């Protein structure tokens, strides 16, 4: 059982980090970024290239992933989402755009990096094995890094000037504008940060799970689940949702294994029941 809980926690940290960027973009722009998973994949491939192929230090690779994705995110906001949001009657329209960009990324990634699963050398070797818990060191490092990233992000949003401006923007665009916040610029920064987070997680996790060009879509959907459990557009919710999903998977796969492939059925059903009782997720706000 200790092992199951340890697995759940580790998985949760990883998931929470994936969900953060998605929820940030949603909070700021009310855009459900279908391309989040693809951004993650791109981040993974960049780290693969820089660290795995070119042999540069892992930190450099991670930086490269983050920066590239941040730039891509900023461009996407500026040239795509901003225009569509301004011109469309219904804000759901951005979903089509987001889905189209997801397909586009899929195509680009497939063309650039091929169809194969890719992996990189481990960043730390060895396996921790004590007190009934087995956990490879690299997972522990990644888990710890994930928690550090999450904490840094939360602190940044909570206490920095930029973070505060972004929160204000998410709550009331016009009022934020009247405070002197440059709405366009901060939307762009927010989008870039969301994309950067996706890229960094991709780079981080490529050391453990590898990466391949097709997993973007499924990753997005998983991230949607977490965001929904916790409440859309709430940073705390995304984190909680990530840990809950991680724990549910870990426990479910052990407890329910006798019954065949019902774990996910149970998870999904539980989610539906949960949401019909709490229509805004765990800590969601009555919008979204």
């Amino acid at each position: 059982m200790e092992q199951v809980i340890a697995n759940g926690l580790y998985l949760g940290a990883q998931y929470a980090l994936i969900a953060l960027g998605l929820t940030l973009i949603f909070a700021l722009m009310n855009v459900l970024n279908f391309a989040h998973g693809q951004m993650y994949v791109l981040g993974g491939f960049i780290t693969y290239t820089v660290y795995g192929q070119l042999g540069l230090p892992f930190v450099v690779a991670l930086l490269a992933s983050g920066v590239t994705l941040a730039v891509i995110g900023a461009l996407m906001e500026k040239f795509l989402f901003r225009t569509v949001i301004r011109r469309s009657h219904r804000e759901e329209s951005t979903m089509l755009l987001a889905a189209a960009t997801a397909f586009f990324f899929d195509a680009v990634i497939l063309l650039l990096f091929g169809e194969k699963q890719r992996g990189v050398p481990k960043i730390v070797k060895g396996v921790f094995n004590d007190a009934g818990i087995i956990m490879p060191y690299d997972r522990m490092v990644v888990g710890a890094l994930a928690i550090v990233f999450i904490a840094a992000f939360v602190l940044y949003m909570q206490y920095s000037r930029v973070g505060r401006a972004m929160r204000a923007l998410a709550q009331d665009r016009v009022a934020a504008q009247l405070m002197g916040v440059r709405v366009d610029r901060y939307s762009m920064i927010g989008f870039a940060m969301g994309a950067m987070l996706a890229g960094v997680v991709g780079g981080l996790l490529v050391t453990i799970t590898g990466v391949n060009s097709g997993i973007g879509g499924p990753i997005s959907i998983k991230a949607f689940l977490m965001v929904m459990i916790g409440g859309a557009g709430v940073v705390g919710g995304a984190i909680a949702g990530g840990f809950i999903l991680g724990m549910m998977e870990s426990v479910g796969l052990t407890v329910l294994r006798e019954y065949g492939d019902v774990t996910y059925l149970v998870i999904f059903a539980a989610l539906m029941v949960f949401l019909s009782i709490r229509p805004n997720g765990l800590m969601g706000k009555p919008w979204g």
Partner: protein
Amino acid sequence: AENKELKIGFVGVTSGPAAAWGTSNVRSMQTRAAWINETGGVKIGNDTYNINIVTFDDQKDPKRAIAGMEKMAQEGIHYVVGPNVDDGAAAVRPVAEANGIIYFPYAFPKALYQKPASNAVLGMIANYQSGPAIYKYLKENKGVKKIAFVAANESDPLSQRDSGVEAAKALGLDVVAQNDTYQNDTRDFTPVLTPIVALKPDLLVLSGVAPANAPLLIRAARELGYEGLISTETAQDAKVLQEGAGEYANGFISVGGASTPEIASDSMKEFVTRYTKMFGEYNDESNTKVYALEYIIETLKANPKAINDVAEFKKTMDTFSAPNPFLKGDAKLSYVGTTSFGQKRQLSVPMVVNEYKDGAFQTLFVGSVD
């Protein structure tokens, strides 16, 4: 004189999460076609043909696959490789039969190849054929007694798991896990494997595992302290295993085609070289997929009338035999399948069982089907 054109179709998945299956497939066809065309084409009857591969990406959607097959019919194509999955293979059957198309799906449901179906030809070894052989070998040579299965919760892997379990039971093996499944988007398999590893099986079978998932499963199992054997009945890629699981992948057993040094002929080696040159990197999965095109061409050579008439093709299938260019020695190309399907609707490809070792496959044993 100018060569005529022979169009061969491909309907399969070359984008999305399963892109690897179709991509390795179509690339092997394109490599071979380019090779043939470069060396002057192929002489069938009195005419010489250049091979033109017409491809259709069905996005792993059976509904699209039908459209693809319709498109092939429209192009006047009678020989199509694909689709890559069960549902697509079942869905295109009405179209193929109505339009006189012989197709070579990489899907295992027996209904596709048994009467009254007659237009599908299984292009590789089915897992219910290779599974028992592998388990038997491992039982006899490696003392395997306890066996565990894990599969993605999707049609193809689950079907393969079920027939695997059946085969294992028939061999008298102790099946300790047969219900464990994972969502195909799983990236971290530790939670899936934790309870299975605790059962300490001698052999862990990854039923119908996608090449992308295999290294992740292997690595998670090994890191959890699993010490038994791991095997699968699908084809894998050595590079992927090396990158994804490193030395943990050593000893991993899978099926392959013909590129291991022990059995590959010079043609096979040249094929690999050409493929690598064309697409930048070889994919070992392609080993199992080199055959369909070869069979089509050779059968047409044997009976040129079949070029526009699949009834002729079917007739020829019963007696057809030609040398296998990809294998060392005097291996033959022929149609088999009577035992499994009651009619010759399977390519006689060697059942090559490989073991991964330090970045390459080694042949463990070679079997055959009838």
